[in-house]
């Protein structure tokens, strides 16, 4: 019989460390563990099961989109009817397919997110080319706004990842507000740069000021005012 010297509990013969405190237990017979262990080396089938379902969904969507692209292609070749519209439809279908692929989480989260961003940018560029627009909306607005959203959401994910074990009802609203402030300032900046030609923030400052106040309020409720500050307030405001 083997015992853990730290916990004082009996452990199964052949185990290498205590199941409670990980304290190493000298092993007299390595082969014993394999032969006599009560449980087998378990296999986790979750990812396999999950992948099967995911593949089925992805291929179903893929086949539908592919069929639609073929139909659009045939219409494009057979009927000389509104080619521009058909190009938009085909572009839309390809973009949906790409977005579904990234949403299915086949790659690492960061790559998926980057892929979705690239899809949006490329789609906008194609729309810009198909329409043959005179003004430069792609470089002036679409690219900066998409990049701003990409950077904003990346920041939001990073902050959320490091605070996810904290109180959900304080940290999630705080993060959403920070995200909104960043996006508002960015949007305001892009608009002012394009219209006025220089950086001139207006409404986004109101959003930022109110957002910061709400964050301070939430954090104060959560952490409570420090005893020292409370003492000062009590002394200064006593009636």
């Amino acid at each position, binding site marked *: 019989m083997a015992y*853990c010297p730290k*916990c*004082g*509990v*009996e*452990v*199964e013969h052949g185990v290498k460390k*205590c*199941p*409670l*405190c*990980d304290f190493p237990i000298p092993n007299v017979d390595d082969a014993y563990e394999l032969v006599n262990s*009560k*449980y*087998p*080396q*378990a*296999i*986790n*089938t*979750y*990812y396999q*099961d*999950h992948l099967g379902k995911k593949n089925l969904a992805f291929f179903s969507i893929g086949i539908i989109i592919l069929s639609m692209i073929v139909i659009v292609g045939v219409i494009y070749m057979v009927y000389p009817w509104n080619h521009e519209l058909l190009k938009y439809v085909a572009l839309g279908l390809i973009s949906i397919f790409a977005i579904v692929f990234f949403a299915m989480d086949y790659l690492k989260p960061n790559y998926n997110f980057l892929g979705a961003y690239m899809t949006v940018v490329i789609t906008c560029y194609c729309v810009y080319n198909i329409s043959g627009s005179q003004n430069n909306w792609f470089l002036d607005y679409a690219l900066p706004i998409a990049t701003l959203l990409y950077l904003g959401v990346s920041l939001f994910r990073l902050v959320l990842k490091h605070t996810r*074990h904290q109180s959900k009802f304080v940290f999630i609203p705080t993060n959403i507000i920070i995200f909104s402030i960043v996006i508002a300032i960015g949007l305001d900046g892009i608009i002012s740069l394009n219209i006025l030609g220089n950086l001139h923030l207006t409404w986004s400052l109101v959003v930022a000021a109110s957002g910061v106040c709400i964050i301070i309020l939430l954090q104060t409720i959560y952490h*409570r005012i420090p005893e020292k500050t409370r003492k000062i307030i009590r002394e200064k405001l006593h009636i």
Partner: protein
Amino acid sequence: MEEKQHKNKFYSLDNAGFLYTAIASSRMSTVYRISVGLSEPVDSTILQKALEQIIHRFPYFQVTLKRGFFWYYYQHTEAIPKVGEETYYPCKTMRQRQGKTFPFRVLYYKSYIHVEFNHSICDGAGGLVFTQTLLIEYFKIQKGISPKNLGKAMDIESEVDPKEFEDSFKVYYKGKVPSPPSSKKVFHFPFELLDKGEYLLLTGIVPVDPLLGLAKIHQCTITQFMLALYFESIQEYIQGLPMSEKKKQRQLIAINVPVDLRKMFPSITLRNFFISLNPEIDLALGYYTREEIIEQIKGYMGLYMNRKNINRYISRNVRNEQFIFLRIIPLWVKKLFMPIVYNRFGERGYTSGLSNLGVVSVPEEIKAYVKSFEVFPPPSAESRLKLVMVSYNGSLSLSFGKTTGETVIEKIFFRKIRKLGIPVKIETNKR
């Protein structure tokens, strides 16, 4: 004739079953396990034969889950369940919603038989009856033993009593009883979750007699004593956490204790028939000593574990189920919202669970061949650590089921038992 009646028979889910089928997910499989250790390696052919012999006596378990427009339901199947060697993690999700599997599975590994049940079909008491019947049949085929006294196991030659599969919640439901107060948000273990699909088991085996002696000294039951030790362990864990004293004192610890209602009502159903009580200790009132916790639990149980109070829980649950606006919501909408509602209102009200299935016995004739009994709770994401206790042949199995790799609570808990001078043997599937 009797068998014909059960063919193509439709079994509506019981009150708890409705919830379990709706909240089941890859992490919350709602599957619990009964493990039986034998003195010899299991013969899979005989186990299969035994299962085939007894399954006709349990037509309400020989079913597959079907999808209705408003609710799931069980339908009798002529298929015969197959035993399998244990290869996967315990309490693995049953792909029930696809209508492919039975609501239970019989596994074996070396000298162990594991019977895993989906909680939507039966509770621990019902599962134990099935397992005991299977064991008796196994030894009848293997050793030719026909016990005289079957105990709680079923006689497979007897007729099926419709009361065995009744929804006792509905039978003993009394309308117009006010609902119990809603639960408060309590302390939850901040442990990292394991990967989806993984589930760890850790059993501590202790002799019953010294624990009974200690419970007697404290004038409480063995469940209350173990519950007190568990509360004390969680409290000690909170005391050691790196957070301010003020935050520690804001914590409320509650442990979910299922009560087998067959002891309170004259029901013989094998399906779910239990209600959970939530004894709690509030650290805002200060830290508790073991004696204070025992007094608190005894007071709580004395106040709430009676038919009148239990009726409030039964009535609330049945009323919710029969609420017409809930019933007419299509199943796919229910499936979407029930897990959220359950996480918000169900699991937020308790830190962990402790379930005592009491003393399990097998007929004297096969006692020499049955070494141990263990029962493991179903995995849960919110309540990452749960405990089930069951005693057999003078040994008490304290089985933790965990969706986390942390062992800090069990370490404190079992060290406390060791400090009482009681030997503990630990077994786990963690590698």
